[in-house]
């Protein structure tokens, strides 16, 4: 048998040589590793962006919710943090009860669902009167008692997430001649409703009850001191740890809230 010379076409159809395959695999490996690295980096970056954006959105919502209630409050009761330097949650606010049930005895505030704690859809307003002894405004129920709701912000947990819960309890009453200021432990009220206003993923190995590595809410006065009864403004600071690789990196949001109703009263 006489061997015939192999044409170019025949060689191409016959496949690649071993060195060619090795070189191709090496190049492919490099390309894939680069792709993988990029993909992982992209994923991490994307996850980080998402978690930071998510945390900031939640922080902003918690801050706004706190601000609305702090402005409306006639009295406030903070917890002092473990280091004794700041105030923190749980926070209980006394707010005039400005909505009443309609029709009675339906609740004046939503008790369940995403709107829990908001005025009920059909609720009526409560109009104030003047307490002649002091000339200040008062809000009373049909029996002539002062009436208020308690709004409590506290830490909560949901699965692996740390949450901020807004709970309202109502009604609380007091004689017209008394000062109505609520502080924990609150006596049981006829109604209660709560909802999560913020939810923060735990990216650390910390316990959900550990405030330093997930989410921390602190309050001070404008001089960064503990809040006293005469303070007219509260500095709210919300510190979250949204970075899954570096929980020590904090997303911090703060705002100064003027205690309008408490100051004016």
């Amino acid at each position, binding site marked *: 048998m006489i061997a015939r010379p192999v044409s170019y076409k025949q060689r191409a159809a016959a496949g690649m040589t071993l060195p060619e395959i090795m070189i191709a695999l090496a190049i492919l490996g490099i390309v894939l590793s680069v792709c993988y690295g990029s993909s992982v980096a992209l994923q991490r970056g994307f996850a980080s*962006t998402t978690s930071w954006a998510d945390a900031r*959105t939640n922080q902003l919502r918690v801050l706004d919710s706190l601000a*609305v209630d702090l402005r409306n409050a006639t009295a406030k009761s903070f917890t002092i943090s473990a280091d004794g330097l700041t105030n923190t949650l749980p926070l209980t606010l006394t707010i*005039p009860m400005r909505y009443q049930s309609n029709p009675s005895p339906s609740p004046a505030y939503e008790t369940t669902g995403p*709107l829990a704690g908001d*005025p009920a859809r059909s609720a009526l*307003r409560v*109009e104030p009167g003047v307490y002649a002894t002091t000339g*200040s*405004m008062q809000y009373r129920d049909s029996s002539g008692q002062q009436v208020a709701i308690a709004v409590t912000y506290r830490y909560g947990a949901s699965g692996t997430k740390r949450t901020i819960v807004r709970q309202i309890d109502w009604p609380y009453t007091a004689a017209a001649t008394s000062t109505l200021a609520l502080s924990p432990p609150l006596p049981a009220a006829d109604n209660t409703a709560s909802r999560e206003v913020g939810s923060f993923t735990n990216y650390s190995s910390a316990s959900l009850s550990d405030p330093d590595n997930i989410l921390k809410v602190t309050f001070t006065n404008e001089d960064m001191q503990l809040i006293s009864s005469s303070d007219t403004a509260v500095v709210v600071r919300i510190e979250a740890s949204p970075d899954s690789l570096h929980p020590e990196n904090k997303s911090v949001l703060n705002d100064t809230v003027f205690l309008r109703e408490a100051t004016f009263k």
Partner: protein
Amino acid sequence: MKIRSNSQSCTASALVAVIITITILALLASSLVVNVNNRRMTVSQASAWQEALAAAEAGLHQGIAQLEQGLAQNSLPLAGAVPITTWPSPSPTWSSPSASLNHGGEGSSSSTYQYDMTLNKKTINGFDKPYYCIVSTGTVVLPGGKSLSMDSADAVLRKLNLQPATRTATRRIEAWLKPVYTTQGPLKTDQPINLNNHNIFVDSFNSTDPTRSVNGLPDARDSNGHLLTNIGQFDAPNFNVPLSANIATNSPFANIGNASVYGDVLTNGGATDGNGATVTNISNVKGEIINDYYEPLEPIYAPQWSSATVSGSVNNSKTYTGGTATSPARYQVGTVANIGNIRLSGGKQVTFDFGTTKGSPDRTKNYIELYVTGDFTTRGSGSTDGSVVIVNGVNVKIYVAGNLNFSGNGLVNYNNTAKSLEIYGISPPDGTTQTFTLAGNSDFYGTVYAPGADLKLAGGGSSGEFVGSFTGKSAFLNGTTQIRYDEALDGTGRISSFKIAAWFEDVKNLNTGTFTGQLKF
């Protein structure tokens, strides 16, 4: 037989790989864009929501400005023959037109506010007081796209309106304003307060409350009228009553001189610590030092009376007699063109007495108003009664355009009530100094509101009490001065400003009604 080319197969595989890669990248990118857009929407909608509150506050401030303008023009909004209504009868309400506040921004270049103002009259301690309610709504058009934040909690909190025609953030606040009278508080000034003696004290009592006064007086006295005690009885901590003898200045400066103040010291930005302290010598302040006080002091303008008895300057003894409550007797010393003074010396005396009917004193004619276009000074020893005498039962208002100096034997008000004498200092032109001095040995019962005058109170000896309320441009107290604020003065005098008594944000869905602005009790 046609053999399929391998190179064509490789080309197809590359295309598929490229398409898959592009698809994956596009999905990643779109997810990122959605995430970023969601974040952007949340931030922009939250910003609009915050701005709506600022707009609502602007409406509230506009309403307050309207009230202050009404005060300056002596014509409060909705005032007049307004009856006192009872719940649920409607009180009069005025609605403002919608006003815009312009700003830059994507898709939202302005915010708007609109407010409703309601007047309620409330009778307290026999006085009709105007309470105003302002319900103000701020609205901002939402910038950006139509989508909401992906988290429903944002929608629950902010209750944005996403109807295509009116994509807005709207917030509504309700504020109640109560009148502040010229007689609220023992001592108020625009400029610094200087209590220059540790023997000074400032306290309060209530002449209409038998548990907070001794026969209507601030302290117990013996049968000769001499003090049995020299300390404020009703604000002493042992009696456990609220401290209301607050002294206040719109300035950051107040030297308390270690005087005893049975109330708070309020300043505008005053500091108490370190070398930069502006509120000093506060060791005997029983209340708190508060540094965020500001209260505008409305100027006093010269009376514009349609009729009055006009005389020239008074240098000799003279008696002014009264008219009725609805038609008080009005006297004017001098004119704007030809200024007149009351200057008493030696044993000269000015007396404010009842009017007469058929030659006999008529106790229904017990209201006198006196306008002195120049100075009113009593430097002499006066009679044994004093240089200025107010007969028991007579009510006097004195307007002084120049300086006032009650010293020597001073003023004796036989009513022994502060509300029976109101002294007003007509605000001088800018750059003109005005001084009001109250000194001497007699007790002073009355109120002084002179926002353009430097106020000097100087007690002497064991007496020299100042019972009432005092307001000046600045204040200097020395000697053994005692200011005894009568809490029953609240509601007397003139309205100097309106103060927010309640503030509330209505978080209920705005399409289902709002607060009515009516007082319920």
